[in-house]
Each structure stands twice: as C-alpha cells, then as structure tokens.
C-alpha cells in the first residue's frame, strides 16, 4: 500500500489530535513550502530523511519518440533526492529481513 497525503492527514489527526482541517492544511503546506524552496533554487535538507538537490542541465538534442522528429530538449533545472544515512540504513534493514523471510 502506498502512503498518500490522505494517510498523512489521518496520521496527524490520530497521533497529534489536530482537527481534519488543520491536518489537511499542514500536509499541503509541508509539500508546498518544499516546492517553493526548490523553485527559488534552494536545496532542501530534511535531517533523518534526505536532501532534495537541484542540478542544472544544458540543452541537448532530443527526438519525438512517436514521429522521430528532432526537437531540442531545452536547458532545465531538475530535482534529485539523496537519501540520508539514517533512511538508507532503515531501508536496508527491512530488505535484509525480507530476504530472510523468503
């Protein structure tokens, strides 16, 4: 099962007793403020989780896969995610347990 915004709202409601409105606004703001920082060109660091970094890409030649027509892919800035040590270790620990099970 994938974790969604609705699950995160539910979690704040259950665990912290925020009302549904407050919880929904908070989850929205959480992702919106991260998006805005990235839009401003700022890296976002969430300790214990990971960093959202930005990389600049130059224009490069591309092709429309359907028509085969050549169209340049414009210069752009892209978001990359680097998981932190703690998250990587937690994920690996789970994978280890999973293999043991099989």
């Amino acid at each position, binding site marked *: *099962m*994938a*974790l*969604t915004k609705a*699950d*995160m709202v539910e*979690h*704040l409601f259950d*665990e*912290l007793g*925020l009302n549904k*409105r*407050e*919880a929904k*606004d*908070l*989850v929205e*703001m*959480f*992702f919106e*403020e*991260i*998006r805005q*920082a*990235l*839009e*401003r*060109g*700022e*890296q*976002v*660091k*969430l*300790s*214990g*989780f*990971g960093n*959202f970094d*930005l990389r*600049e890409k130059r224009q490069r030649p591309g092709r429309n896969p359907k028509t085969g027509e050549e169209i340049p892919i414009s*210069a*752009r*800035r*892209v*978001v*990359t*995610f680097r*998981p932190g040590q*703690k*998250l*990587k270790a*937690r*994920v*690996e*620990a*789970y*994978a*280890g347990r*999973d*293999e043991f099970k099989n």
Partner: protein
Amino acid sequence: MTKSELIEVIANAQNHLAYRDVELAVKHLVERMSQALASGDRIEIRGFGSFSLHYRPPRVGRNPKTGDSVTLEGKYVPHFKPGKELRERVKDAYLQSLGQAEAS
C-alpha cells in the same frame, strides 16, 4: 532550507497552530514517510512526486584500505521521482531566472 527553517516558514504562514505544534507535526510527517519506506511501502504525493525502493544487485566490492575484495549483498535504496507539477515549476522558475539574467 533545513527542517527547522521549513517548520518556521509553516508556523509563520498560518495562525491556527502554535510553533510547537507545527514542529511536532512536521517531525511526525517526516518520520511517517521514513517508516513507510522502511517497511517497503511506496509514497505517492500528487504534484510533488513518488518515493519507491530500487533494488541493487549483489556485487563484489573492494576494501579501499587493503584492496581485498568483499562480497556485498543485494540491497534496496530509496528512490524519488519528481511529479509533473514539481518538475514544471522548477524548470519554469529556472528559465525565467535565466531570461532575467540575460535581459539585465
């Protein structure tokens, strides 16, 4: 922007919740997301992106100090794929900043 700066921005942008509550809520959200990945679940946030686990197959690595080869087991690593809205907003803001730099 760090986690504490994010907490501060959110606390200032609304007036329902005290700083302390926003701090607790943000910490809970980050922990909930870590927990999802740590138990093998994906995270799907429309307009932001999705997190999933990618498998890295076993390989033979080397101890950089001694040069000895060591067998490294296969493992899972977290992966993030930015969503359409995030990709476009970051790209558009960047192109706009390039345009402004050229104009001045």
